[in-house]
């Protein structure tokens, strides 16, 4: 940072322009890269890997996101519940989307299950969703870079 001696009183003035330029560039860099779509992630969930798991081209319309942990509990809407106790939450979300004009069969249900969860529990969760009329399921996986297997 360049420091110049200015004036007859001997006041030091710092030239802040390069530092501010650099700082704004850094902020712009981080602003462009920040990804709010990943904010729905749950730290307890480690998704399975798949080389075919490519991000959707268009964002899903009002999806219901269900996080299934390794122990079999479900996180949804900021609450933790059991698979058997998820019906009230699903019914509420389902009705809210129907009221907004969505067709029941089009409501996407994103299932983010832990890689070590039991497949039977995933099926059980799907079955609970089917009970209230949901049928459009998205099994989420993390993109695997081919060659790193």
């Amino acid at each position, binding site marked *: 940072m360049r420091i110049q001696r200015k004036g007859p009183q001997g006041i030091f003035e710092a030239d802040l322009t390069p530092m501010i330029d650099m700082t704004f560039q850094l902020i712009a860099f981080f602003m462009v890269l920040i990804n709010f779509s990943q904010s729905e992630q749950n730290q307890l969930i480690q998704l399975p890997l798949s080389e*075919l798991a490519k991000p959707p081209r268009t964002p899903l319309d009002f999806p219901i996101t269900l996080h299934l942990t390794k122990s079999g509990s479900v996180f949804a809407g900021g609450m933790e519940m059991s698979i058997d106790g998820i019906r009230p939450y699903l019914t509420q979300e389902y009705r809210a989307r129907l009221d907004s004009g969505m067709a029941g069969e089009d409501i996407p249900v994103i299932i983010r299950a832990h890689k*070590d969860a039991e497949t039977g529990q995933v099926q059980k969760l799907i079955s609970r969703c089917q009970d209230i009329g949901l049928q459009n399921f998205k099994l989420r996986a993390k993109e695997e870079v081919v060659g790193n297997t």
Partner: protein
Amino acid sequence: MRIRHVGSRSGDKIELQMTPMIDIVFQLLIFFLLTFRIVSMEGDFNIKMPRAAPREGLPDPNLVPPMLVRLQADAKGDIIGIRLNDTPYGTYDALRNRIIELVGSDTGPGSVQETAEVEFDCDYHLRYEETIKAITAVSGYVGDDGKPVKLVEKIKFKQATAPEGGSGS
């Protein structure tokens, strides 16, 4: 930003008060630095499973080659058996090669690839990771050019069974 007139009236030197702006800028920078995380991209496997039309057994043989994938697991949830229509396959790659033989490279409207459907019958304790590997094997593969090649897009699960049975069917 406050602008202050300093100095003699004749000079009209304007001095910008930079301190508040720099404070905010650094706070923004720290916020973005702390929230920045490099994450892998995520994708979905689509499964259309209406409750109204549960299917028992194999898909309609008049429409597509019936394909039922059976995944067996041990008590720990590790895979011990992969079967396609009762024929055992040692690896997911072998399963994928068989699927490629069955559906071929025929694409477009009304093609076998478009109408083909795979139903999964998995043991309750099977680790979900293994199920996703099997779904990946029947869904497609990444070609030499790095682009995904699709095989079967219609995927279903057989009705879940109780864990006490230890077997999916």
